[in-house]
């Protein structure tokens, strides 16, 4: 009974409330396109201490987060594509830490690593690299000689990854998609495409609209970070 009276009450100023609802909905739609601004990720990169270096066509941004993490991004200035993103991973026991590449080609080691335990994948084994384009998230798995019909690639939202399987049981990989995780977006099977040539399996995932929006906006935002003029030289003479 009470509820009913409530309804009638609302009914009383029908005109006004309709406008309100419309407004609310509009702002919701507006917000949805910018909802990435509410994610922890976006806030953390806004709050991070950023410094910028410009080298020819490449813009390098160094982020220092509140929790002492460090990240470097490299953008191509012309195409606005993110060429490389790497994280500095420190061991629990301390030490200098090393860079782990999330997107882009791995950084060649300056010094041969002696201390790593001497078991490594053979050179001819499959290796995954990330290389994003303007519209796609891309994984390239080199050294996979099997024909395209061998592979089954599926989106798995429970484990939040793309799973690559082979019918001959020779290769299996769970590919994390940190970009979507950060925005809390679901993986969709329909967005996945793949091709295979020159022993390389290329998996493409179409960037969803919110991600595209965010990247565009963020690139604009980064223009505010002024590049350091006098570049610190790597080889200081003492």
């Amino acid at each position, binding site marked *: 009974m009470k509820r009913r009276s409530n309804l009638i009450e609302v009914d009383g100023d029908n005109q006004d409330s309709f406008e309100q609802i419309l407004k609310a909905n509009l702002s919701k739609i507006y917000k949805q396109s910018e909802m990435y601004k509410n994610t922890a990720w976006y806030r953390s990169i806004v709050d991070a201490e950023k410094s910028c270096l410009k080298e020819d066509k490449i813009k390098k941004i160094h982020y220092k987060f509140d929790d002492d993490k460090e990240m470097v991004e490299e953008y191509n200035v012309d195409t606005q594509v993110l060429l490389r993103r790497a994280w500095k991973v420190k*061991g*629990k*026991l*301390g*030490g*200098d830490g090393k860079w782990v590449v999330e997107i882009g080609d791995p950084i060649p080691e*300056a*010094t041969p690593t*002696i*201390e*790593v*335990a*001497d*078991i*490594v*994948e*053979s*050179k*001819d*084994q499959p290796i995954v690299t990330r290389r994003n384009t303007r519209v796609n998230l891309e994984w390239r798995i080199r050294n996979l000689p099997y024909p395209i019909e061998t592979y089954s690639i599926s989106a798995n939202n429970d484990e939040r990854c793309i799973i690559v*399987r*082979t019918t001959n*049981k*020779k*290769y*299996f*990989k*769970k590919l994390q998609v940190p970009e979507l995780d950060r925005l809390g977006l679901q993986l969709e099977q329909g967005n996945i495409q793949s091709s295979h040539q020159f022993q390389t399996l290329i998996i493409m995932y179409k960037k969803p609209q919110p991600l595209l929006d965010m990247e565009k906006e963020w690139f604009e935002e980064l223009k505010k970070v002024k590049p350091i003029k006098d570049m610190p030289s790597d080889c200081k003479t003492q």
Partner: protein
Amino acid sequence: MASIAAAQVQEVRSITRIERIGAHSHIRGLGLDDSLEPRAVSQGMVGQKMARKAAGVVLQMIREGKIAGRAVLLAGQPGTGKTAIAMGLAQALGPDTPFTSMAGSEIFSLEMSKTEALTQAIRKSIGIRIKEESEIIEGEVVEVVIERAAGGGGARVGRLTLKTTDMETNYDMGAKMIDSLLKEKVQAGDVITIDKATGKINKLGRSFARARDYDATGQQARFVQCPEGELQKRKEVVHTVTLHEVDVINSRTHGFLALFSGDTGEIKSEIREQINSKVAEWREEGKAEMIPGVLFIDEAHMLDIECFSFLNRALESETAPVVIMATNRGITRIRGTNYQSPHGIPLDLLDRMIIVPTSPYSHQELREILNIRCEEEDCQMSNDALTVLTRVATETSLRYAIQLITTASLVAKRRKATEVSMEDVKKVYSLFLDEHRSEQFLKEYQDEFMFNDGGGDAPQLMEVAQ
């Protein structure tokens, strides 16, 4: 038929034994039963019951890990098993308790101060058990291939093929990995995990798929499923690292040259302090556990007065390990002073120690030890040869008798005998002089040697040089 089988057995042996036979490689523990009572002959240990019992009490003390900075002195004549007891203690403690073994003379180096060397040794003897995320390879072994590289370099190359139910990968291995694979006797069909950071191999069992070739497996073989999914996983594993290793990791920021030299040089005291406070923090948060280990200093009389006073102080710190020293000296000069002291160790340090004496072996014990050494060196010895050898051991020294085992077995091999006879032992006894006969010889022919007219000056010079 029998000879083929024998040849095969030999081959297997040569693969599994990768450790060389050392003076104490027959020691596998202290030879104590569960109530820490010494057994007469066990785990390579013979006799010396009181000392072993004492070592058992020390072992209990270390295991409980509550008491820091105790020192134990093993004192006894040469060849009475001081080092053997320390080695047995290390074996009994197991691989997870850090055990650092050094000789007293090791600390004298031009690159490092004596106290730094001692500090490093002390910090090497304290372990921290810490949970860390690590890359783990987990899979069933498909194939292990080990071959010598072409070109006579002799470097071994290894390839390991592992699989899960979903994938298969080849790995290249270096020499260390090959050794530990051989040590663990990993073969096709085993399910193993390898910690990529430390190279530690853990055998989980045999794959169910291989359950049919039952005659190839032992009775207690455990069968497990072949793992699924990816071969490489990130997992939380418990690592044991020593404080010294943490020091090294954190002091390596300057330059990569330290990587090549392997020598870490001196570590700044600030870094050590930082790490100490960090470790204390971890312990409070329950993230890490401290395992006080053992520092064994052989020939402790070679340490000088500065080292002793440093040890005095270092033992008082609550992160100090249990220090075991061994010496074969009686009342002698303390190095670096003109004072005499028992065992060449200052009285104030001696006062902080518990002293475990070792006594000379009896005839029967010597025979037992020689028998064990014969087994260890794969040497068949006839009964009377062993009797002669035991006599030699009582009359000269145990070490000399042990030297004769190898030499006699080589002589026996020359005459294509399978067993070492009394004649072989006699032959090598006449070929190689023991210390006493050598001295006799020198006394007899002293006049014909060089610089013999120097007279009594030489010993005095030695004293000064020391």
